[in-house]
C-alpha cells in the first residue's frame, strides 16, 4: 500500500506544479487587468490586486475600438467556419459516395494540399487580393480560406462511418444524392461538423499573419492585430493592456469551454483512426 500512496502524492505534486506554471501567465493577465496603473508598474511586482478596479475595462474600450476588433474577428471566423462546413461536406460527400473517373487521383491531390504550408502561398495571394481591391475587406480576410483539405478529410471519415444499409435503403426509396446529402448524410454527420466547426473557428480566430498583411485601417483590424498594437501604443500602462487581453480572452475561453469535448473526441476519432 505504501508505494501507492507515495505514487499518488507524487502524481498530485506534479499536477499541481504543472497547473501553477500553466496558470501563472493567465493570472498575471487577470490580476494586472484589475490593478491601478501605479500598482501594475511597481517593483517588486504585485501578485494580487488590492482592489477590484474595473475602470480599466472601460478605459481600454474608450481608448481603442476593441469591440470593433472583436466583431471583425467574429465575422471573419464565422464566415470562414460556415464556408468550411459547406465546402468540406460537399467535397467529402462526393469522395465518399459518388463514383466518377479520377476520384482516387483527385482525393490524393486534395490530401497533398495539406502539405503546402500556407505561408508558401502568402506572397502571390497577397498580390492577388490586392489586385482585386480586396485589401481591408471581409472578402479579403475570408475568401482565401473557405476551402479546406483537412476538413474534407475529416468529413469523409465521418461519412464513411455511416451505416451502409441506411444509404442503400434511401436509394431504394428513390432518394437522389442531393436529398441523401441534405437530409441524411449531413444531419447524421453532425458530430463531425461540430468538430470541424470548433476547430476552424478557433484556428481562424487566432490568425495573425494574413490579417496583419491585408488590413491597414483600424476599422478592419481583427482582435489579434489590434491587441498586439495596443502593446506598442500603451507601452507602460500594463493594466490597460492586460484589460484588453482579458476582454479578448473571454470569447476564446467560452468557445473552448463549449467546444472542448467536441474537439477531443472528434479530432482523434476522425483524424487518427480512419
Amino acid at each position, binding site marked *: 500500500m505504501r508505494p501507492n500512496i507515495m505514487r499518488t502524492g507524487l502524481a498530485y505534486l506534479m499536477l499541481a506544479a504543472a497547473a501553477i506554471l*500553466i496558470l501563472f501567465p493567465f493570472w498575471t493577465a487577470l490580476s494586472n487587468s484589475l490593478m491601478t496603473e501605479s500598482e501594475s508598474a511597481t517593483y517588486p511586482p504585485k501578485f494580487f490586486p488590492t482592489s477590484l478596479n474595473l475602470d480599466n475595462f472601460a478605459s481600454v474600450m474608450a481608448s481603442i475600438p476593441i469591440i470593433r476588433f472583436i466583431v471583425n474577428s467574429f465575422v471573419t471566423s464565422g464566415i470562414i467556419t460556415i464556408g468550411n462546413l459547406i465546402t468540406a461536406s460537399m467535397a467529402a460527400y462526393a469522395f465518399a459516395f459518388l463514383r466518377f473517373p479520377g476520384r482516387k487521383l483527385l482525393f490524393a491531390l486534395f490530401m497533398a494540399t495539406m502539405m503546402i504550408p500556407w505561408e508558401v502561398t502568402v506572397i502571390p495571394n497577397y498580390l*492577388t487580393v490586392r489586385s482585386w481591391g480586396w485589401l481591408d475587406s471581409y472578402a479579403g480576410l475570408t475568401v482565401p480560406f473557405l476551402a479546406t483539405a483537412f476538413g474534407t478529410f475529416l468529413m469523409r471519415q465521418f461519412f464513411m462511418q455511416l451505416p451502409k444499409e441506411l444509404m442503400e435503403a434511401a436509394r431504394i426509396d*428513390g432518394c437522389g444524392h442531393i436529398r441523401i446529402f441534405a437530409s441524411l448524410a449531413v444531419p447524421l454527420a453532425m458530430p463531425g461538423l461540430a468538430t470541424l466547426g470548433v476547430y476552424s473557428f478557433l484556428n481562424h480566430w487566432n490568425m495573425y499573419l494574413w490579417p496583419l498583411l491585408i488590413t491597414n485601417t483600424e476599422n478592419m483590424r481583427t482582435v489579434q492585430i489590434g491587441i498586439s498594437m495596443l502593446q506598442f501604443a500603451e507601452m507602460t500602462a500594463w493594466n490597460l493592456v492586460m484589460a484588453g487581453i482579458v476582454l479578448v480572452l473571454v470569447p476564446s*475561453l467560452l468557445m*473552448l469551454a463549449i467546444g472542448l469535448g467536441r474537439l477531443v473526441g472528434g479530432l*482523434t476519432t476522425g483524424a487518427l483512426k480512419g
Partner: protein
Amino acid sequence: MLDKSSAVPVKSGMQRTRSAVRQPRRTRHWHEYALAVMFLAPSILLFGIFLFYPLIKSVYLSVHSTTPRGDVAKFIGLRNFEKLFDSGHFLNSLWVTFEFMLFTVPTSIVLALILAAICRTHLRGTKVFRFIFSLPLAISVSTGSVIWMVLFHPTLGTLNYLLQAAGLPAVQWLTDPNWSLISISIMTIWMNLGFLFILLLGGMEGVPEDIYESAKMDGAGPMRTFVQLTLPLISPTIFFASVTSMIGAFQSFGQIHILTKGGPMNSTNVLVYNLYQDAFVNFRFGSGSAQALVLFVLILILTIIQFKFGEKKVHYQ
C-alpha cells in the same frame, strides 16, 4: 463508400444490383459525374486560385526580379536562390529555425505526454486539471506574446523578480542574443501545450480499458505500463503530434514579430519572419518567393522523412 473496387465506373455498374435497376446505366453515370462536379467545384475552384496558382506563381516570381509594387521586372534565373545561399543571413535564419524546432518540439511533447499520462488515471480531481492543462488552447499567438512580454520585462517583469528572489542573476530575456530564442521557445511551449495535451490524452483514452486492467493483473507498475504499453499503443498519435509540431515550428511568426522582431542580432530571425521582412518590408517579392519555396521543400522533406521512417516504428492497432 458504396463499393471500394470501383476504379472504373462502367465495370462497377454491372456489379451493382438493386439501386441501379431504376435508371439506365448511362444516364445514371452522367448524372453522377455532373453531381460530383457540382459538389467538388467550390473546393477545386478555391484551391486552384489560392493554393495551386500561388504555388506556380511563386516559382515564376522566384526566378525574376520584381519592382516594389510586385510587378515582374526581369528574368534572372536562379540568382535569387544563389544570393540566399551565399548570404550568411539566410543560412542563419535556417539554423535559427532548426534550433527553435529542437528547443520546442521534444520538450512540449514530453511534457504533454507526462501530464496526459497522469490525467488518464482515475485520480480524484483530474477533471479540473484537464481543463487547466487545455487552457492554453484559448491563447492566440498575439495574446500569448503580449502576456509574456510583461513577464519577460527586464526590470519590472515577474520572471526576473522570481530569479532574484531565488538569489540568481537577472536575465535579459528578450535582448540578450544567448537567451532570446530560449525565451521565445518557453513561451511557445506554454502556448502549444494545450493542443498537444488534448491530442495525446485523446489518444490514450482510445486505448481500451481492459488492456490496462490485464496489465495491472499481471502486476505491472504504472511506469512499466506507461513505457511498455501506453507509449507503443499511442505511437500513431505521438507520431502525428510530432509531425504537426515540427511543421508548426517551421511556420512560427507571430511571437517573433511581437516579441523580438527577429533580433537581437538576428538570433530569433526564423524563416517565415525573414520571408516577411524580405517580401513585405523590403518589397523584394522575388527573393521572398525563393524563400517560400525553400520553406516548402523543407516541410515536404520533413513530412516524407517522418512518414517513411516514423511509420515503420509506429504501432497500429
